[in-house]
């Protein structure tokens, strides 16, 4: 725990130092160095926790806060490792990413400060065990990420999506405040330790409290129907910030849900079904929308929603299995959930960083304008492809291992002899398979439109990015493969947080079956390498010729298949899920001058629920324009009227 505080102190020191440094490039270098050192300290502290168990640290901050307790247990340590490593890699990446901005003369002082503040506050959130302090650090985290989002504040859309993010975060905080308020009223304390008693006394109340917590933290995590901020805020933020937000920050929402579970214990059956079905819907909704996006980063944001759904499915199955007292199933499901939290933070960060690397060179996020980047930016392209394979949960990468665990929990949950469970589990299984295949559709589309084929417009790159960007990406890409091939060593540590909930002796069996999987995946890699070597040995003479145009030989790169066409068969199947708008201007006359065709897919939740509410809200509030009309005389009149009223009231009372 001491190391943990030293780590956070080093981060804060780094922020202060960066203020003193003049040269903006050195500023970034300063915070990178400090974040590496800080992250190392936090790693030491977390690993020590894994080995020797949890430890507490109590500050006395007077009567308002009571005793502020920080505790580094297995769950906190697990999240702290993810936060420390992923944030540091993103900060290192920002050295290269922000260079073009610095050359244009942009001031990055505040940006550096908020980067460190975001990292430090996330680290604070996962160890704080005092409700009031938790809320303060939580707000600090939301605010610093809000300011990071506003990096390109000159653009109007950036400001509007930033405000949207802020509004959603405040909505989330309202629910979290209710959650903590209910708990602390019952427990007469702000300390988490006293909260555990509430569930034991009153199960119905604990269930209600859990629902508040789930909604509050679910907004942060991006569960449908509270996801709307995510696809707006992530694409507008600079890539390392979106990587931090999507890879790490939304995980604090999951952390909150897990803590809420720990505090409120197992909710009632209907709540369990609610959590499970909401998660399934989240996964399906997220990936369906991801597959139709044009903007690479928006696609990745929707895919984050999908992965939150998968994590939620794991938690849901854990709850279901615990309700029916099947500890092995519960353990596998929860372990899969934790493993997916770790894996998602790795490959999502990798994908966001690669997307940023594309953006910096080509100045566009619209994949329909890209193409052929694999020839100019090979490392970025390979990183993106590897990230894509991992996120589609294909072997032998890490995504496969965590989804495998969740699938295994389904298959074992079929053992629970209950009709409802059978139906729900089959539904979840089919949905997860569907999510997997739509993910394949979505990522083959993105990869092939943006990176393969020929360049579609003048937005093309000449060379790959500087090393500081590629280093972070390569480390993450390697991590994807290593975690896929050695699951038994790495995911031993995801068992530790899972065992906070289930202390049964079945953990060892778990490792055994992970090592079988590891052997299978090694065999798979062996097969691939063997066959490639055979191919190399037997291959004949090769020659190069242009692509066959089916008899037509004036092909241009604009005639390639577009992303919108690629998804259109899928889009036609799930028509009612989307709101599609077409903007067509047909070519007319013998010598047509201009023609225009554009399709757009809007989020149905945004179009049919949020926008009408906002419209109504605006209409209602505009009625009060009479009061605030900018006329100073009238304001003085209001003041006088108020004073008079106060005087009359005072006289009447006396």
């Amino acid at each position, binding site marked *: 725990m001491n190391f943990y505080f030293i780590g956070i102190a080093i981060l804060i020191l780094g922020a202060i130092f960066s203020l003193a440094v003049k040269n903006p490039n050195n500023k970034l270098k300063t915070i990178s160095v400090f974040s590496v050192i800080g992250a190392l300290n936090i790693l030491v502290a977390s690993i020590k926790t894994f080995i020797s168990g949890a430890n507490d640290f109590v500050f006395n901050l007077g009567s308002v806060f009571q005793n502020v307790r920080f505790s580094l247990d297995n769950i906190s340590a697990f999240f702290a490792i993810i936060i420390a490593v992923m944030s540091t890699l993103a900060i290192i990446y920002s050295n290269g990413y922000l260079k073009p901005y610095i050359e244009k003369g942009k001031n990055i002082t505040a940006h550096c400060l908020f980067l460190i503040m975001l990292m430090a506050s996330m680290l604070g959130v996962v160890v704080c065990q005092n409700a009031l302090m938790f809320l303060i650090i939580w707000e600090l985290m939301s605010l610093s990420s809000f300011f990071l989002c506003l990096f390109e504040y000159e653009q109007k859309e950036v400001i509007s999506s930033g405000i949207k993010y802020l509004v959603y975060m405040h909505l989330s905080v309202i629910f979290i405040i209710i959650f903590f308020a209910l708990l602390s009223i019952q427990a007469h304390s702000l300390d988490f330790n006293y909260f555990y008693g509430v569930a034991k006394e009153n199960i119905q109340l604990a269930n209600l409290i859990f629902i508040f917590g789930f909604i509050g933290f679910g907004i942060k995590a991006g569960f449908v129907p509270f996801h709307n901020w995510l696809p707006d805020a992530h694409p507008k933020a600079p890539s390392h910030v979106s990587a931090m937000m999507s890879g790490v920050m939304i995980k604090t929402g999951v952390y909150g849900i897990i803590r809420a579970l720990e505090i409120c214990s197992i909710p009632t059956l209907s709540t369990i079904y609610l959590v499970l079905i909401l998660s399934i819907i989240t996964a399906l909704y997220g990936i369906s929308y991801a597959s139709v996006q044009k903007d690479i980063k928006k696609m990745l944001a929707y895919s984050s929603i999908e992965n939150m759904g998968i994590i939620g499915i794991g938690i849901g199955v854990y709850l279901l299995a615990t309700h029916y007292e099947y500890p092995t199933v519960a353990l596998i499901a929860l372990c899969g959930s934790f493993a997916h939290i770790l894996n998602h933070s790795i490959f999502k960060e990798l994908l966001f960083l690669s997307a940023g690397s594309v953006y910096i060179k080509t100045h566009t996020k619209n994949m329909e304008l890209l193409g052929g980047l694999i020839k100019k930016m090979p490392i970025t392209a390979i990183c993106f492809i590897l990230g894509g394979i991992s996120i*589609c949960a294909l072997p032998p990468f890490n995504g496969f291992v965590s989804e495998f665990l969740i699938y295994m929990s389904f298959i074992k949950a079929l053992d629970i002899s209950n009709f409802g469970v059978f139906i729900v589990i089959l539904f979840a299984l*089919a949905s997860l398979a569907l999510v*997997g295949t739509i993910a*394949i559709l979505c990522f083959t589309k993105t990869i092939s439109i943006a990176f393969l084929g020929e360049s579609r417009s003048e937005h093309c790159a000449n060379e790959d990015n500087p090393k500081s960007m590629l280093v972070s990406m390569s480390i993450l890409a390697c991590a994807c493969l290593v975690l896929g091939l050695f699951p038994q060593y790495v995911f031993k540590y995801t068992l530790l947080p899972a065992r906070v909930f289930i202390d049964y002796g079945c953990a060892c069996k778990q490792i055994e079956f992970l090592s079988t999987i590891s052997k299978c995946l090694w065999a798979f890699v062996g097969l*691939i390498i063997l066959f*490639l070597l055979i191919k190399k040995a*037997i291959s004949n003479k090769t020659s190069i*010729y242009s*692509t066959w145009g089916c008899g037509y030989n004036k092909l241009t790169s604009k005639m*390639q298949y577009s992303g919108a066409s690629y998804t259109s068969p899928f889009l036609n199947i799930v028509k009612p899920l989307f709101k599609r708008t077409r903007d067509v201007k047909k070519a007319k006359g013998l010598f047509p001058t201009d023609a225009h065709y554009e399709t757009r897919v809007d989020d149905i939740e945004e179009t049919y629920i949020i926008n009408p509410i906002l419209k109504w809200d605006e209409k209602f509030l505009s009625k009060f324009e009479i009061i605030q009309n900018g006329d100073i005389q009238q304001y003085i009149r209001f003041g006088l009227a108020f004073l008079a009223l106060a005087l009359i009231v005072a006289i009447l009372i006396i």
Partner: protein
Amino acid sequence: MIVKILNLILLLITPFLMVGLIRKTKAFWGARKGASIFQPIYDFIKLMKKDSIFSSSTTSLFKIAPMINFACIVFASLFAPMVMGQSIINIQGGLILFAYALGLSKFISLLASMETASSFEGMGSSREACFTTIIEPAFFIVIASIMALCKVYTFDSLNQVIANSGSLGILIIIFAIACLFIMLVVEGARVPVDDPATHLELTMIHEVMILDNCSQELAIISYCAAAKMFLISSLIATLILPLSLPFWASLGAFLAIMILISIIIGTIESAIARLRMSHIFEFVFVMSSLALVVASLVALKLYGV
């Protein structure tokens, strides 16, 4: 052990013979003599000797894709039950490894076909990707229902349906076979979904994805498509064959089922034309409905509702 080695040998040879037999059947219905059923093997050897031509738009991803595809098929087949209902590696979760290895093969072949920058191949890949989204969930529902029915959580549970459920089992088997057969037609790119003999690129699915492949690459890809067909046929065989058969009878019955499936496919290809593109989706959706029927039959058996 013998069974396992036999499985591998069957995996390498049977796909060719099945394709040969399908062609022979088509020739029979067309009143032609037709090529020998070993013709696909001769084609394979001929293609392996040829020089390759690659599109100028492609990179080494395109060159390594067929071999990765092949590795995926071989890896997936390690988990699929074949002769005697035994798979080479029998572990819990073999189903998932099987399905996801095939998923990787699809992922790689989609990327490879998109790499040629040809709009025809884009068309094919978009359809192929879309069909998979319909098939995969149905496949998982069928297999998981059968697992729940037999209370055996490995892929081999397919061979225990009759033993576990008596007369209702026959109904379950019929629907499950119908499901797997649709999957076979779609994955193996046969009529009425796709026509491997057509020359109209606009209406093709799997065949159009490999327009720019030739020689060794084409040989391997064609083998992979046939092998997928064989794998799914062997799932069907496992569903039908009872466990109690002795080795030779079981092997004979297995091969007989392979021959029967090839003849049925050949007959279908001779009897009907391929469907219109918009109807193919409806055809593939039939699989989902059938899968739900299997699930409800299993629920009926287990919970009596």
